[in-house]
């Protein structure tokens, strides 16, 4: 029995498709509606990608795709241009640095690192808004958005499990 040759990990599969899904999910949750007087949560979907892409494998395309996603968020949210790219890249960079520590660890440890990376990303956005806008963002609103973004951790695990073994060099 001959072994079937493994498909090479093409960028559009692990970078392109998840990025597109993140954009669609962001737009879908941007609908102006309330359910029982509560507005829809608004998590930062690309934050999941910033974490998962760093631990799946190092990539040159990843950071630049994060810039594109960040600029999309800035334009969609009417935030200052560059705010979310910086925030996502801070999360990506910290995850990339901690990547060797996370390899082979349990999911709980990964969740801890995801929490740290997300906190770093939001903290950088908070500081940038405080410096540029001379105002402090509301902490309750900040914690709420962080909480709903942290709740997306299972998607990061799914993404990692889906592509972890796709390229044997980065096991």
């Amino acid at each position, binding site marked *: 029995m001959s072994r079937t040759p493994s498909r090479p990990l093409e960028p559009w599969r692990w970078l392109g498709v998840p990025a597109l899904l993140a954009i669609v999910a962001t737009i879908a949750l*941007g609908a102006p*509606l309330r359910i029982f007087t509560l507005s829809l949560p608004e998590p930062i979907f690309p934050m999941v990608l910033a974490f998962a892409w760093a631990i799946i494998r190092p990539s*040159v*395309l990843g950071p630049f795709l994060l810039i594109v996603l960040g600029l999309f968020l800035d334009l969609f949210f009417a935030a200052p241009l560059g705010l979310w790219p910086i925030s996502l890249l801070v999360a990506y960079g910290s995850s990339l640095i901690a990547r060797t520590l996370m390899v082979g660890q349990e999911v709980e440890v990964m969740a801890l690192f995801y929490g740290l990376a997300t906190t770093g990303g939001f903290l950088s956005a908070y500081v940038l808004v405080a410096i540029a806008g001379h105002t402090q963002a509301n902490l309750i609103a900040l914690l709420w*958005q962080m909480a709903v973004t942290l709740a997306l951790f299972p998607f990061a695990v799914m993404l990692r499990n889906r592509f972890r073994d796709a390229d044997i*060099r980065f096991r």
Partner: protein
Amino acid sequence: MAYRDSPFQELKVPLTWAAGAATIIALALAIFVFASDRRDQAKASAQALGHPQVRAGFDSVIAPVSGVLAAPTRWIGDGFGSVGDYINAVSENKKLKKRMAELQQLQNENIALRNLTRRYEDLLKLRTEPPIPMVTGRVVTDTRGPFSNARLIDVGAASGVKIGNPAMTDLGVVGRVVGVSSGASRLLLLTDPESRTPVLVDRTNARAVLAGDGGSNPRLDYIRGKDTLKNGDLIVTSGDGGLFPRGLPVGVAAQDVRGIWRLHLFSDRGTIDFVRVLLYDDFSQVVNQAQLAATALPPLAPSEAAQVKAAAAKPTAANPAAPTQAVKAPKGPTANKPTDVAVKPVASRAAARTKAGEYRRVRTPNRPPSVDDRALPQYDPNQPQGRPNDGRAGA
């Protein structure tokens, strides 16, 4: 196979370094974009966001896309809304009946007050603000969060919307337009961290600035006066600076646990699916400049007209040959130029001021000399410099 024994370990290190370098380059690029956005915003008008062309292009593309992609979410929300309406129908009916009884009384009071106000306005010849044209738009996207609060609506420059136009629902003010494309506009909400709105307390007329911070209850900063605010005070737009018309309802004041005054926004009481954009630029729009420049002076009373006629018929010492139907300006650059005050409309503000002076002098010829009629203080070299001789120096 252990990591160190992997035949591909030589490949891993360069790729990791390359990814690290790419991250640093991307981060530098992002910081550059952020800095350029701040610089662009500082250069652009204070009411617009940075890179307005880029944002307008994005909005014109994303508005229809959002309408399609958010449709399933909308359907689900409508489904939940229907269920909620069905469940709450009885209690809501009771509340509405009670509210209707209250409103009936208010309506009667409103009619009486409106009648009285109109009479006062007529008596005082008060110039009331003209009605402001509006366009209604549907909200396509609603972005929340601590760093930005904005909405995209499906009316744009084609409908007359401009940057700076205020927007409100039937409940109260929502925000203002900060970006416009042909078929879509971007609203900056009152809760956005960059939003600053001049407001006043309806009860005490005290001024304040409503500052958004990304939360649902924006702060009241720079409150003028002491003890001018209490819980439950109605807050309306002050119209200061000309950004908003005066008197639009904004919300109700409340103090938070830290003692900071905040607002419960009226617009936050219901889903904002439709907004009305007020096609209002600033207070200068309220004044019709052409009409103001062309305003004719009011006609004289019969007794005054008789006096004018008599004065005009009598030749004056300065100009014995003055025509009988004209009134001569007594002093100033228009002296010796006959002008028919009662007939000709004034052509400009300067002319209106000049003629108003003439008119005042003509209609009350026997009044005591006023400050206007006194000769201008002449320069006296004996007086200390900077102190004109006003007749009291020698006293």
